[in-house]
C-alpha cells in the first residue's frame, strides 16, 4: 500500500517549509527512518525522514519549492504498485509558492456551492460551505491548519474572530505540553498566532526572530525584577565536580542554573505558564529553553523535564543540542515545547540585562556574569563572587511580588548548590 509523505510541521509556528534538497531520487529504495529530504524552516534546516519503507515512486515537489505544512511531497510504495497521483497533489508541485500559500479552492477548503435559496441554513449550520470568519481568523486558521467549520464563533452573528482561534490554539497547547506529547509529536504543538513577516531580504531565522520578538514586546506587558546571587559556593562546587569529569562532560554554570530554575519553577507553577486570552495555562512539565547564539540569530534549545533530570544529564543534553543548533541542523523536538527560557550572556562579561519573553511563555530569565566584587559582610569589605539575573514576566500572568519571591527562592538553590545534587 503506497504511503504519501507530507510536508511535516517542524516548528511551533511553521506554516510552510522550503524543500531545499531531495536526498532520494524517484525509483530509489528507502527504509523507514531514512532521510528523504532537507527542509528549511523558519528556524533551521531539518532532515525529513521517510515514514514508510519501499521505493520512492513519486517526488511531488521541486527543489526550492515553498510548501505548506501537510501538503503531500512524495509517495513511497511497492516497486510494482500502481500509483495514482491526484491532480490536487500535482497542482501543488507546479505552482509557485506565493500561489500555493494562498487559499485556493483546490487547496482543500470546502467550497461546494451553496444550494440555491438555502442561505439561511448555511449560516446556522457549522458544516455548511460558508463559514463566517473574520479575514484575520481565516488567515491564522489557514496558517495553523485549523478547520474553521469545527470552530465555534463568538463574534457578531457567530463570526469566528481571533479570540476563537486563540482559544483553540491554547487548548492544543494544553495537550502538547503534556509529557507524552513532548517526547514525541512536534506537530501538535501550537502557539498563539504570530504576525507573518513579509520581508524577503531577511533569512528565515531572522524573520522569525523579528516577528516573534516584535510581537512579544508589543503585545506582552513585560515587567522586570533583578536579583543578585552569591556564587562562591556554586563556583567552588562546580570546580570540584568538574575535577571528576572528562573534558567533554564538564558541567557549566548555566547547567546549574537550568536545574536550579527548573526546581524553583516546580514551586512556582504560575511562572511555568502561558497566557491564553481568557485564562492562564499552567504547564505540567518543566521544559527549560536555553537561548543559543547561532549564525545570524539565536535558537532556543529545550531541555525537557529539566526538574527531574540530573545535572550531568542536563549538561550532556544541552551540549548536544547547542552543537546541533550551531551547525544549523537541529531536530524539531530539540527546539519545541519550552515552558520557560533562560538567556545567559555571562560569558561576555555582562553585568546585567533584560530579555524579551519568548511567547507564549510567561517569563524569561536573563543571566549576567559571575564577577568578583567587593562585598560587605559583618562590617568587613572582602572579595566575593556575585551574579545578577533579571526575570522578565508577562504582567497578564503574574505580578511583581510573585516574581520577587521566585528570584528569592532561586537563591536557595544557587547559593546552596548542594541542593541541586540531591
Amino acid at each position, binding site marked *: 500500500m503506497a504511503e504519501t509523505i507530507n510536508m511535516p510541521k517542524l516548528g511551533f509556528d511553521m506554516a510552510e517549509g522550503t524543500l531545499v534538497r531531495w536526498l532520494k531520487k524517484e525509483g530509489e529504495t528507502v527504509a523507514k527512518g531514512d532521510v528523504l529530504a532537507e527542509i528549511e524552516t523558519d528556524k533551521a534546516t531539518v532532515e525529513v525522514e521517510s515514514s514508510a519503507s519501499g521505493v520512492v515512486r513519486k517526488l511531488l515537489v521541486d527543489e526550492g519549492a515553498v510548501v505548506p505544512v501537510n501538503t503531500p511531497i512524495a509517495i513511497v510504495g511497492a516497486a510494482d504498485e500502481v500509483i495514482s497521483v491526484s491532480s490536487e497533489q500535482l497542482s501543488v508541485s507546479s505552482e509557485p509558492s506565493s500561489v500555493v500559500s494562498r487559499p485556493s479552492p483546490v487547496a482543500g477548503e470546502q467550497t461546494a456551492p451553496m444550494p440555491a435559496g438555502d442561505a439561511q441554513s448555511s449560516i446556522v449550520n457549522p458544516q455548511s460551505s460558508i463559514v463566517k470568519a*473574520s*479575514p*484575520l*481568523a*481565516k*488567515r491564522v486558521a489557514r496558517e495553523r491548519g485549523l478547520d474553521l467549520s469545527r470552530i465555534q464563533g463568538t*463574534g*457578531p452573528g457567530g463570526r469566528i*474572530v*481571533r479570540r476563537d482561534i486563540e482559544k483553540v490554539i491554547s487548548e492544543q497547547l494544553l495537550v502538547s505540553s503534556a509529557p507524552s506529547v513532548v517526547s514525541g509529536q512536534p506537530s501538535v504543538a501550537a502557539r498563539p498566532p504570530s*504576525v507573518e513577516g513579509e520581508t524577503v531580504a531577511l533569512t528565515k531565522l531572522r524573520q522569525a526572530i523579528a516577528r516573534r520578538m516584535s510581537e512579544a514586546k*508589543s*503585545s506582552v506587558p513585560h515587567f522586570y525584577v533583578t536579583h543578585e546571587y552569591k556564587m562562591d559556593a556554586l563556583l567552588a562546587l562546580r570546580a570540584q565536580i568538574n575535577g571528576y569529569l572528562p573534558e567533554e562532560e564538564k558541567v557549566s554554570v548555566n547547567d546549574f542554573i537550568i536545574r536550579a530554575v527548573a526546581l524553583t519553577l516546580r514551586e512556582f507553577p504560575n511562572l511555568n505558564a502561558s497566557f491564553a486570552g481568557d485564562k492562564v495555562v499552567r504547564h505540567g512539565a518543566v521544559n527549560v529553553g536555553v537561548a543559543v547564539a547561532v549564525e545570524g540569530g539565536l535558537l532556543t534549545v529545550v531541555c525537557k523535564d529539566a526538574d527531574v533530570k540530573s545535572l550531568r544529564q542536563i549538561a550532556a543534553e544541552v551540549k548536544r543540542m547547542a552543537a546541533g543548533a550551531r551547525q544549523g541542523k537541529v531536530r524539531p523536538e530539540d527546539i519545541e515545547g519550552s515552558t520557560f527560557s533562560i538567556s545567559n550572556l555571562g560569558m561576555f562579561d555582562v553585568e546585567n540585562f533584560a530579555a524579551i519573553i519568548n511567547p507564549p511563555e510567561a517569563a524569561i530569565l536573563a543571566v549576567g556574569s559571575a564577577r568578583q566584587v567587593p562585598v560587605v559582610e559583618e562590617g568587613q569589605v572582602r572579595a566575593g563572587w556575585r551574579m545578577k539575573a533579571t526575570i522578565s514576566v508577562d504582567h497578564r500572568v503574574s505580578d511583581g511580588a510573585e516574581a520577587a519571591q521566585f528570584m528569592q527562592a532561586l537563591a536557595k538553590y544557587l547559593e546552596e548548590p548542594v541542593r541541586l545534587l540531591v
Partner: protein
Amino acid sequence: MARITMREAISQALWEEMERDPAVFILGEEVGVWGGTYAVTKGFYDHFGPERVKDTPIAENAILGAAIGAALVGLRPIAELMTINFAFSAMDYVVNQAPKLRYMFGGQFKVPLVIRAVGGGGRQLGATHSQTPDAVFAHFPGLKVVSPGTPEDAKGLLKTAIRSDDPVLFLEHATMYQVRGEVPEGEYLIPIGQSKVQRPGRDVTIVTYAKGLELSLKAADELAKEGIEAEIVDLRTLRPLDMGPVLESFKKTNRAVIVEEGWRSYGVGAEVAARIYEEAFDYADAPILRVAQKEVPLPYNRTLEQAALPQVPDITAAVKEALK
C-alpha cells in the same frame, strides 16, 4: 517650547515665513486692516504693509485667480478664504486650475500657492457656513490637502506648505483656534504627507484628523477607564494620504474606527477603510466602522446641530461595537 493656541501657532508660522521670504504675501477678505476674521493675521498689516497683507473685495474668483497668477510668476501667495464654504464660489481655481496647470502644460509651471480656509460645524451658522467638505478637495490629484489637529502640527505643516512648490489647501477648524499645545519656537517644519500616531494603544485603531483628533483623544481617555486602549492615528494630510502608520497600527489591533467631521458618504473614512481592506484584508478581525456627520445639511438649532455632528459618545460606542 511654549504652550500656545492653534491660532497663535498658525499666526506664528505665517509671520515667520513672511519675515524669512519677501516673496510670501497674504491676500484675502479682511486679512489686513481688520486683522483677519479669526484674528489670525492681527498686527500683520501694520508690520508688513498693505502690499504684503492685501485686502481684497469679496470676490473669491479674483482672490484665487490672482493668487495663482502671482504664484506662476514666482511669488508665494497665501490666499485666505474666509471659510471653506466660499471655496465653492471659486471651485474652478481650487480643483480645476491650481492642481492642473503644471501637469497640463508639461511641467513648465509651478504653482507655489497656499489656500488657507476655515471649516467645520458647531457654531450655529446654518447649513451653508458650517461644512467640512474636506473629502471633496482631497479627491483631486495635483492638490495637497492638509488639516492639522494640534498647534504643533499646524505650525510645522503650514511652514512646510508655504515653502512647497505645489498648491496646498490648508484646512483649519473654526472651533479649534483655542486648542493649546506645546509648539517649538522658530524654525520647525513637518513634512506634508505623513500620518502620525498621536496616542499609542493595543486594542483598536482610531483613524482621524483635525476636529476628529480632539474628539478621539477624549474618547480614548473614556475608553481607557474601561481598560480599552485605543491607538489614534492622525492623518494630518489627506492628500497625499500616508497609510503607513494606519496599516501598521491596524495589523497590530485588527480593528479600526474612522472618525471624521464630514459626511460619511464618499468621505475620508470611506477612502481609509477601502485602503485598509485593500492592503491589510487578512488582518481584519471585525468590520471597519465610521463615525461621521449625519447625512443632513447642518441645522441652526444648537441641539439639532450637535446631534448631527460626531460626538465623543459616538466614538466610544463605535469602538465598543468594533471590539465585539
